[in-house]
């Protein structure tokens, strides 16, 4: 069977193949022509969905709410309308109580053309998502688009119950270009693809536990991982869990306080106890997955 690349699909194609066939019902579809007035004011082409599709569907027969960001439109950047659609979806989840909310994230973060509104919107998404989790509804984030998941959306993703990610997916805060522009090419050479992936890519995030499943770039694998995630209990945010997270992040920071010789990603993996850390970049997804208990 040939595989269908998740990265190469549009947001709606991903939804179509991810959920049960024919089950996706979109809210505020492009026919409603809901686009950004701010982009129009700037004379920049807008989109009738403002770059995100939202709705309900079933996954393995269970009711879920879904949102998919379209990386081809403004890099998936969050503007006023885009953000409000995500918040509305979370609010509706709180009211209607689906089994889970799936967020197919692909975003550079705040859309700079409407930066102030985007920044506030991202924080509203974060609060609304944590409301959903507090109600015991799982939020699962899927990352595998060409634009990665950056900026405020990189923070939002880490507020979810679970992240599933392909090896070509990227999850981080500031993009390599931004860091290079700020601190120079010696700080971060954004054209060094191997370095970019060692710093932000799926394999690295898997080895550090920043994502919970590592997948091939195959939409069937994303569907299987999403279904598997539905079988897990919602992870309530408790003081105990936050303390565990705090201890993990503190220990990780202490692993890399020196100016490590050679490649610091390899150094970090090695200090995390990953066997064969120096060979990780040559390994395939199955081999990397086996380096860490699921």
């Amino acid at each position, binding site marked *: 069977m040939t595989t269908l690349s998740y990265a190469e699909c549009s947001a709606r194609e991903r939804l179509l193949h991810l959920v049960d066939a024919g089950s996706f019902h979109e809210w505020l579809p492009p026919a409603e022509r809901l686009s950004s007035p701010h982009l129009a004011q700037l004379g920049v082409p807008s989109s009738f969905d403002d770059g995100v599709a939202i709705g309900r569907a079933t996954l393995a027969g269970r009711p879920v709410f879904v949102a998919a960001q379209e990386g081809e439109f403004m890099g998936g950047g969050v503007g006023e309308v885009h953000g409000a659609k995500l918040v509305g979806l979370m609010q509706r989840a709180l009211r209607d109580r689906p089994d889970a909310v799936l967020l197919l994230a692909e975003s550079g973060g705040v859309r700079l053309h409407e930066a102030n509104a985007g920044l*506030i919107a991202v924080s509203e998404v974060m609060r609304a998502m944590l409301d959903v989790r507090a109600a015991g509804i799982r939020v699962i984030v899927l990352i595998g688009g060409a634009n990665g998941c950056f900026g405020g959306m990189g923070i939002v993703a880490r507020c979810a119950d679970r992240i599933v990610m392909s090896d070509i997916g990227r999850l981080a805060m500031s993009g390599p270009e931004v860091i290079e522009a700020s601190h120079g090419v010696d700080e971060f050479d954004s054209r060094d693809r191997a370095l970019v992936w060692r710093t932000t890519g799926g394999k690295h995030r898997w080895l550090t536990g920043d994502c919970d499943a590592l997948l091939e770039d195959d939409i069937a694998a994303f569907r299987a991982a999403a279904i598997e995630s539905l079988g897990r209990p919602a992870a309530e945010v408790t003081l105990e869990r936050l303390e565990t997270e705090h201890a993990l992040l503190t220990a990780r920071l202490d692993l890399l306080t020196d100016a490590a010789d050679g490649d610091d990603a390899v150094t970090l993996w090695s200090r995390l106890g990953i066997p064969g850390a120096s060979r990780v970049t040559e390994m395939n997804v199955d081999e990397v997955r086996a380096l860490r208990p699921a």
Partner: protein
Amino acid sequence: MEWNTLATALFGPDHGIRQEGDLLHGTVTFDGQAVMVIGTTGHAPIGVRLALAQARAVLDTVSDHPGRPILLLIDTQGQQLRRRDELLGINRAMAHLGMAIDHARRRGHRVLGLVYDQALSGGFITSGLIADACDALPEAEIRVMRIPAMARVTKLPEAMLTELSQSNPVFAPGVDNYVAMGGVRKLWQGDLRGCLREALANASVEDGRARDGAARGGRRLAADVMQRVLDAA
């Protein structure tokens, strides 16, 4: 305003807030009630270490002083723009800080943000913007990006952005714009102690920012779009 000037005006010269590097923290007494103050100064870049230091102070407050109000004093240039921080998962550390604050809110701590100097992008999302409410001093600056940088990134003429920013608050830096859009609840003018008293008494635990943005005319669509999602067939 310099943090110590602000702290002295609010809590007197023996306020009890300590500065350790870019971190501010300490317990103050206000109207006879203990308040935990956690914040940053010196336009601090928020890297993994500083995010964790703030999260530690929040978690300790939840553990040791249930219900004690938390005042976040905000002065940040945004997230630390370093590759090492990205490697170490700065987005995860910032999410952890945001979730710690959110957890404190849910456990009954009133959490109030105050932008007393500057607040930029990533450093603001997991501080003031995740609090129950965020206020600002009138001379504070809040932004994602200045207009010249925005013009470069978006490849739009600077003059056009400057002109549009006169009528539309989404484009330009400024606390007034954030008030108009509902991101900032209120500016503190005049009697600072009175402002804090009012904020602690009136900050809502509900997220009413989209509604405020619509009522104030600075963010006309967000609340309506949220409602349309709720109503969609």
